[in-house]
């Protein structure tokens, strides 16, 4: 017999460790403007945006098992809608953000509705094709999107114009979004979504509409990516087509995979690590992609379940050894 009670107490200890470390992280984040220089504060803000972007992908990818190959589409559409509304129509920030979110959701609903009947890589390829279609239109529609020049000098209200203002707004939105995603992951919907990922056929025979489930996860992921896009505009005050080119999606995919896609914080970890790595190699050498490429190869080869996945596996196997 297994010692279930022992298992529980270790689990409880683990959750304490988790709580405390989250507390420390929150304090570190809250006081960041006090000890970070302007450049590093900007970097921290960029990382926050990337964390939300990567986590938005992990919802359909890690939890739903959908090979979304072009998540940057929704990020880009959120960013562009927000930018155009601010620049061309002078809409206030909140309604503009709401419309941007809505347009990301609608596009995700449209693309998702077409793609979810497909499986595995074929699903991924169609998202890739449709995402590139959207990219190409944005890239060439000079009158509306500014074409390959993008949109610059986007008027952002004073309150979020300063580095510190932008940092706190973005921090708040990212934390609320992450909490929401966490809630969803731990809800019956999230549990069922993981079941759909693990065994779609069996899900059908316990009465779950798997297409619906996948579509909802895909659309939610798209929505949160759209929010991340809006935050990106607040930070950069400019947008250009490369943010929705397919290579950007692959970069984010690598972050999710390296961090560990079956864990909630894995993608966030990947986003932090890779953004920092890119920045530091960028400072020291012109040829940072060379190092980044090699590091990615090494990590993917040796830690196929991601860094956090690897750590988690070590911990759970320790627990198992103790209890069995």
């Amino acid at each position, binding site marked *: 017999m297994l010692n279930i009670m022992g298992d529980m107490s270790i689990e409880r200890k683990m959750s304490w460790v988790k709580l405390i470390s989250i507390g420390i992280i929150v304090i570190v984040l809250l006081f960041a403007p006090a000890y970070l220089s302007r450049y590093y504060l900007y970097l921290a803000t960029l990382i926050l945006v990337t964390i939300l972007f990567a986590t938005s992908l992990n919802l359909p990818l890690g939890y739903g098992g959908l090979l979304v190959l072009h998540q940057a589409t929704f990020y880009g559409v959120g960013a562009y809608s927000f930018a155009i509304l601010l620049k061309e129509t002078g809409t206030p920030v909140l309604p503009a953000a709401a419309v941007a979110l809505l347009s990301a959701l609608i596009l995700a609903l449209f693309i998702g509705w077409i793609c979810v009947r497909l499986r595995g890589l074929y699903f991924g390829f169609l998202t890739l094709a449709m995402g590139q279609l959207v990219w190409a239109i944005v890239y060439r529609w000079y009158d509306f999107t500014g074409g390959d020049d993008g949109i610059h000098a986007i008027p952002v209200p004073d309150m979020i114009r300063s580095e510190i203002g932008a940092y706190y707004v973005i921090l708040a939105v990212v934390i609320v979004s992450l909490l929401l995603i966490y809630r969803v992951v731990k*809800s*019956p919907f*999230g549990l069922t979504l993981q079941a759909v990922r693990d065994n779609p056929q069996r899900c059908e*025979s316990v*009465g779950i509409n798997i297409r619906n489930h996948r579509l909802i996860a895909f659309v939610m992921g798209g929505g949160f990516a759209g929010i991340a896009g809006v935050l990106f505009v607040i930070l950069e005050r400019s947008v250009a087509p490369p943010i929705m080119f397919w290579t950007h999606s692959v970069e984010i995919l690598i972050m999710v995979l390296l961090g560990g896609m079956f864990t909630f914080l894995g993608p966030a970890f990947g986003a932090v690590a890779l953004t920092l790595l890119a920045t530091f190699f960028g400072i020291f050498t012109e040829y940072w992609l060379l190092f980044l490429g090699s590091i990615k190869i090494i990590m993917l080869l040796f830690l196929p379940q991601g860094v956090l996945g690897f750590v988690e596996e070590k911990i759970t196997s320790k627990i198992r050894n103790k209890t069995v």
Partner: protein
Amino acid sequence: MLRVEKLEKSFDGFMAVNGVELSLDKERVVAVIGPNGAGKTTLFNLITGHLSPTRGKVWFKNQDITGLAPHRICHKGLSRSFQLINIFPQLTVYENVQVALLSQQKKVLKMLTPSKAMLEEETYSILEKVGLADYAGIQCTYLSYGDQKILEMAIALGNKPEMLMLDEPTAGMSPEETISTLRLIRDLAEKEKLFILFTEHNMNVVFDIAEKIMVMQQGRTIAQGLPAEVRADKQVQAAYLGEES
């Protein structure tokens, strides 16, 4: 309860199921037997909507369910298990059953309440019924093969079905496990008042617990009736003796 009329399924001209008739009304435990490739699993897939028949009808509780999607049929109270282990590998034993219950209670789209404590009692009551309650918190792939087969059944029970279809519930089990599984099946029929349709290749087992038996061969029904009648049937004897010699 269940009525199957002249059911046919052909794969590129090969008749996997050919004019099968079957009905469950008074008898609660019915077995479908036959050699490998006789069309038993195909018949199951046709009934539960995983395949759509070329011809024929399936009636469940006097409703035509032919060609409905599997998740719709399931919500009507017809639940099944699979021949090969078909569970949710990355979830715990508890969550495996919970998912089925959540689906049955139409709670799968709830997004903002934590799922952990939801339907805890019902989940444990099913786990206790099948004897897996002690393993609730374990990731299900760590269970033994026999226990995974039982979990398979527990998931099907999570849908609170009126009728349960079990595809080779004892396949690959040790003799002891087989006996306790069969006892479980009989209990479910008697205490929970479930209708159970199952396939099985072990003859002795079938004659012990089934109230009615259907024998299939090459997609056709060659005999149907009480265990004693089937045992005495010439065609059945020929089929099985033929296979053994």
